[in-house]
């Protein structure tokens, strides 16, 4: 009998297993976090879902998310201070967006990211973006339509625009940390901004009209040098960046027709091969781009039945793409002097010994770097029309 009591006592040790047990309604599901630096202190804002407002059954029509804010010496402290305001503990396991304020980014972002990379509750598959000209709190304080949870709207918009336009780039925390730490590549992040009336943004009224007073939209890429933000790229340059780094899935590019007018090329497959090498002791990078596409729209009078026309269009595309890429590289080499493309990495991979010699002064070397570009475009389809009806339109 004593033995059974003993066994029971041993089993009771296991009864303490519920330490991290939390019911679903004890969580403050946080889908977006914003980090700003104001007067030397971190201000963290958390966009938390109000579950009863998400469900169509129990919704009362008020906002589906709420924003908690707290200040602290460190990000972690600020997060914990949020419990002063929030009835439930912040649960960041499903975080989708991390918005960093532009001021913070200019001072350096690394310090604020440590907690997010270290905490076990966080997955590192959320996107990191920079609030352009605004604080992160202001970005998270705008109600949105279609996706009524703003964090989801930001996440999905970035995902869609990245894969079908390629002027933005969704960068997850993992990728960002890899960029910040690796040699021969600097980080970029996509910018996010609020357009319209910031005053109405937070209220439900914002989404009650067909055109919301304030909308969250993505801008183009932010250039980093080390862990500091140093400037912004234009749309053309952002596309150039994606072309160079092989991040294009699909996009549309307008080109000029042989005569006058424009044509749009729908790129359906895009592959960039980046190879570093040393020529006569100085580093060089070869970019070989293999692209495939369709003629998407023709706004000029050309004869698409002729294969020469297609060849000509291919040539024009190749030339114009080279132009964009050259322009982008030029801006980075001369204006920002920051290797965001990872050219250094490519050279390192091809010749680690020589790389060691130039590693220290890579920023200077980068500005002098020769980049050889080769573009091959193949056009396959012209859609359901061959020649545009424009030719037949009566004058």
């Amino acid at each position, binding site marked *: 009998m004593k033995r059974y009591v003993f066994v029971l006592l041993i089993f009771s040790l*296991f*009864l303490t*297993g*519920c330490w*991290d*047990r*939390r*019911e*679903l*309604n004890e*969580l403050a*599901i946080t*889908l977006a976090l914003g980090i700003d630096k104001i007067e030397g202190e971190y201000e963290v804002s958390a966009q938390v*879902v109000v*579950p*009863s407002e*998400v*469900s169509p*059954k*129990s919704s009362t029509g008020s906002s589906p998310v709420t924003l908690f804010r707290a200040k602290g010496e460190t990000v972690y402290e600020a997060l914990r201070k949020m419990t002063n305001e929030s009835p439930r503990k912040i*649960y960041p*396991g*499903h975080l*989708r967006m991390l918005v960093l304020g532009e001021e913070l980014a200019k001072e350096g972002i690394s310090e604020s990211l440590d907690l997010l990379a270290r905490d076990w*509750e966080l*997955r590192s598959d959320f996107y990191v973006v920079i609030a352009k000209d605004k604080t992160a709190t202001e970005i998270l304080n705008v109600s949105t339509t279609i996706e009524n949870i703003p964090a*989801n709207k930001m996440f999905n918009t970035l995902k869609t625009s990245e894969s079908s336009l390629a002027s933005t780039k969704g960068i997850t925390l993992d990728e960002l940390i890899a960029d910040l730490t690796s040699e021969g590549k600097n980080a970029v992040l996509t910018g996010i901004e609020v357009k319209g009336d910031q005053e109405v943004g937070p209220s439900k009224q914002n989404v009650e009209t067909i055109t919301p007073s304030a909308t969250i939209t993505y801008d183009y890429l932010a250039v980093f040098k080390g862990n500091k933000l140093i400037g912004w790229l234009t749309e053309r340059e952002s596309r150039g960046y994606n072309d160079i780094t092989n991040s294009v899935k699909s996009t549309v590019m307008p080109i000029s027709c042989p005569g006058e007018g424009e044509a749009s090329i729908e790129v359906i497959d895009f592959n960039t091969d980046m190879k570093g090498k040393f020529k006569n002791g100085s580093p060089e990078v070869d970019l070989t781009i293999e692209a495939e596409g369709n003629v998407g729209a023709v706004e000029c009078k050309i004869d698409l039945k002729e294969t020469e026309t297609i060849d000509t269009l291919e040539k024009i595309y190749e030339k114009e793409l080279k132009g964009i890429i050259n322009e982008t590289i030029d801006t980075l080499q001369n204006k920002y002097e920051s290797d965001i493309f990872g050219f250094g990495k490519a050279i390192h991979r091809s010749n680690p010994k020589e790389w060691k010699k130039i590693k220290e002064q890579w920023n200077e070397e980068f500005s002098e770097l020769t980049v050889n570009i080769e573009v091959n475009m193949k056009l396959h389809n012209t859609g359901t029309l061959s020649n545009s009806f424009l030719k037949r339109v009566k004058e």
Partner: protein
Amino acid sequence: MRFFRKKNSDGLKSSTPLPSQKQNPDQKNALKTDLQANIKILKDSLGESSDIIFREIRIGKEGTIKAGIIFTDGLTDTPSLQNFILETLMIDNKGNELQKKMSAGKDLINVLKDYAMTVGEIEDLTSFDVLYTGLLSGDTIILIDGYAQGLIISNKQWAERGVTEPSAQTVVRGPREGFSENIRINTALVRRRLKDPNLWTESKVIGRKTKTSIAMMYLNGVANDKVVEEVRLRLDQIDIDGILESGYIEELIEDSPYSPFPTIYNTERPDIVAAALLEGRVAILVDGTPFVLIVPALFVQFFQASEDYYQRADIASFIRLLRFFALSIALFAPSLFIAITTFHQAMLPPALLMSLTAQREGVPFPAFVEAMLMELTFELLREAGVRMPRSIGSAMSIVGAFVVGTAAVEAGIISAAMVIVVSLTAIASFVSPTYDIAIAVRLLRFAFMIAAASFGLFGITVGFIALILHLCSLRSFGVPYMSPLAPFNMSNQKDTLIRLPRWKMFTRPRLINQKDVVRQQSPADAKPDPTNRNELEGD
């Protein structure tokens, strides 16, 4: 545990073999020569039971010989008693050969036996023990004054259920016959399917008071001799006052009485028994129940329905896989739900998490309590549905569906997702073709829910490992329970998780049957050859 087991095995060992009826009757047990004395002893010991009928008659020339006829009313076929016994004995046919022989003063018992009784089965009787057994199982007893001997005339007949469609194991395609309560009908149903001289039936009588007939059936030369011997041994060790259902036998001879998993298969379908005998298994039939036991029983056997073999192999395989899937749902669905929603929220897709959270807003219980409440309610409904008189069944299903389905959710006591999980579990637990394995799953589900509530997925994993270990440690009459999965046997996979076409299954299961393994011709010849047919048509 050990304490109990020891006691149990001691009990089995100390049991003495049943007193054989062939033993020489001692003085007290022997019949008396005086008819009146015999009848008095019978009346005393049977306590004047009203269903035992004593009829004293006079037979022989001018009725000089006194005789007694004793039978149990209701168990004996009265017309045949009237026509073949009373009439032959009593109607005084002058010049009848029989009357002459009777009066000749020879051994009257043998004369009656050889010349008079126009019934099929007849036996001598010298002891009271045999008399009681015969009398109480419906035979007619004839005692004659002056002889310490009697006759047992077999003319049993009583009201019984005929061969009807089995209710526990139904099929869409397949025979509709089911076993009944009469062991003779049951052996006949098996015999009709296997007309092989090697189909041997061994009979035993178990139960000191009930004297229940038990029959062991096996295909001699196909069944493993060691298994047959083991079954015989275990049956002989049973010493109990009564056997009322095959469940008694099952509990007394099974390998692991404490395991929730059945190691003996039971069925009410003769076709399943015939198929099992062909595979080399042993069937145990018990009088008074339509449920026949089959040993050795393997884990996978409980997921094989007879219909698997009657319909096409592809759909049979699909359905069999579906059953294993249903098993895992029935076992794990509530515990996984508890573990994921209370410990591992990160595993849920965000949209699902928000939807579940929204449902849980305002629910006063933790997920575990919620799940327990629902599962217990479901078990209550289920048990009530089984025990309740049929006529009020619809009332209960209305109440059940209303309480569980609608009201609990609308009142905000239970979240809708939990109702979905519990219903899914319930449906999945009804999928298994045998009731017994579903019972094990039903019980273990609660253990897994407790493990999930205290340790999350970790608890489920540890529990699952323990479950697998337990299953692998089980044996059924010497055959590993999880075979042919563990130990793995490639050739037996043809009829385990999936069923291959019949022409691919040309050997019997390996571990159950060791000799005479070939079921059909060689595999190359087994497959139907369409080219032959074309040639015939061409002629």
